[in-house]
């Protein structure tokens, strides 16, 4: 157990942040983290020193989250026209948004939108890769991402207005 404990405590912080971003809430994230580590310890012999260990761990955490939510359809209508949603060009750079608030916004996104937003924006996967991972078309991936951004924007605006 000491070896496992060491691996866990070294990487739990990084992987838990991944789980938090990909999950619906804190409890789900804890579950996902636990499942991820079970998979990691189960397959640790299969890690072949190709690429970084951390990258390998992260992929397992992402895959665990994907497996959990992939099958659940988003509640929103998929092919909603989002090209001309007519948002104002706000600049968020100066805004001092709290990390927890942003995380909460992501967690509140419908499952598929959340996964796609995370994969594309935060983990640099391409639409092609996302389409394969989620077994959807590239077009769906793109439109879902737009919807995700749209929802986030709306929420941010609402929050800013409250502040003002």
């Amino acid at each position, binding site marked *: 157990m000491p070896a496992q404990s060491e691996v866990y405590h070294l990487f739990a912080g990084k992987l838990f942040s991944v789980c938090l971003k990909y999950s619906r809430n804190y409890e789900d994230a*804890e579950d996902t983290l*636990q499942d991820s580590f*079970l998979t990691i310890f189960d397959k640790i012999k299969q890690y072949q020193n190709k690429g970084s260990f951390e990258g390998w761990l992260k992929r397992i955490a992402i895959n665990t989250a*994907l497996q959990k939510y992939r099958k659940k359809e988003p509640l929103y209508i998929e092919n909603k026209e989002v090209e001309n949603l007519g948002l104002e060009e706000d600049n968020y750079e100066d*805004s001092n948004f709290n990390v927890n608030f942003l995380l909460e916004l992501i967690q509140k996104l419908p499952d598929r939108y959340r996964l796609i937003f995370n994969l594309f924006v935060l983990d640099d996967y391409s639409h092609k890769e996302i389409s*394969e991972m989620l077994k959807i078309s590239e077009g769906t991936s793109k439109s879902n991402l737009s919807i995700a951004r749209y929802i986030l924007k709306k929420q*941010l605006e609402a929050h800013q207005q409250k502040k003002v």
Partner: protein
Amino acid sequence: MKEDKNIDKLFQDKLKAFEVMPNEKVWNATKAKIQKKKRKFQPIWWFYSGVAAIFILGLLLFPLKDTNIKKESLPENVVVRPSREKDETEYQKNKETVIVKSNKIYKKNPELFTNSKMSKTTETVSKAPLLTDKKGKNPSTNKAIKKDLQVDEFLNTAISVAQNNNTVIYKESLEKKKEITTKSFDVVKKELNKSNFKKANLLETIAENNKEEKEDELQKKWSIASVFGIIDANSFSKTSPLDSNLDGSTKGNKSVSYGVQFTYKINNKWSFQSGIHLQEMQYSNTNIAVVASNIEASNVRFNSGDQFVLNSTTRENFNVNTLNLNTVSFNGNMRQNFGYIEVPLEVKYNVFETRKIETQIVAGFSSLFLNKNEVFLNTINFQSIGAANNLNDLNFSANLGIDFKYLFNKNWSLQLNPMFKTQLNTYNKNSNGFQPYFIAFYTGVNYRF
């Protein structure tokens, strides 16, 4: 577009590098699950080790115990009268001759008495090798016995015991009886006349001869065989343990097993058998549509890191339309090899035995330690090598079969051994109901010692 970048940047800045430590209870729960998983194996393993330990311990103790039993049972068999009643031809004649001659010698030389006592001592030794020559080393008793006991009685006992030893062997083997009785008593007749000491030595020799013969029979308990077998792998269902979409297309191939086998004979009917074998099993699938995937889809981990969904194009509910753009091949084939170090622990029961042929029923189980795990995926465009990710490192098989032996001589024999073995816990997950079994034909040369 710029708007998109702004919002992406906001989240990236804040969330890309953020780290948060989970509550320690998550680690405790994870730890508990890992330990539970590990513990699942232990009871079976400990039970098995226990059986093996008892078996080995038994083997170490058994030979000693066995000789003791023989030693005790011998005196009960010292029944000369019944054999006389049955009028066992040469036996009696020989015996009487010896008695008569012994009597004569005694009359001439009273010191024979001592010798007859010595001969009796020798018999005791022959019956109980563990008791050694304690009595013989104590000549002080001889004088007293000289006066009180009757010669005939002593000689009778002496000879009848010697004879009885022969009778035991007679029961065991007709040939041996003739050989030994004639030989030993011929020698007795000749030698008796010479001197008392020689006579004593004679009886000793007889006893020793008998002892040796007996020990021969007793000690041939072990046998060792080099074994080679052809395995025909099969499964109770036609599903595939590698991908549920390969339903119906899995075929077992022929492979080989070889190793060393040793047997310990408990008695005429029962024996124990163990050994060590290298065993390989092979299954194959053909007509596979291979679809590249980025998530773990099949139970194969390819060395290249690629993931594939494997679809059997021959299965009933296969639909071409379900395949997407990532289909790499429509006509791939796949071969799965997995090998084990097999350690069987089996019981054999003798059902039919002649001088040349032995037939035994074999039943037991084997521990299988995974030592080979390969999957080869071949398509026109590429070849990918990997391994199944759902095979247990240790599993067991239940074994049943028949063992035929043809005996060339006392030591060497040829064996043919068809076995049915079904594996019990081959997979740790997602085996799609696949349960392997195989029929194997083992053959080998057996040496008994």
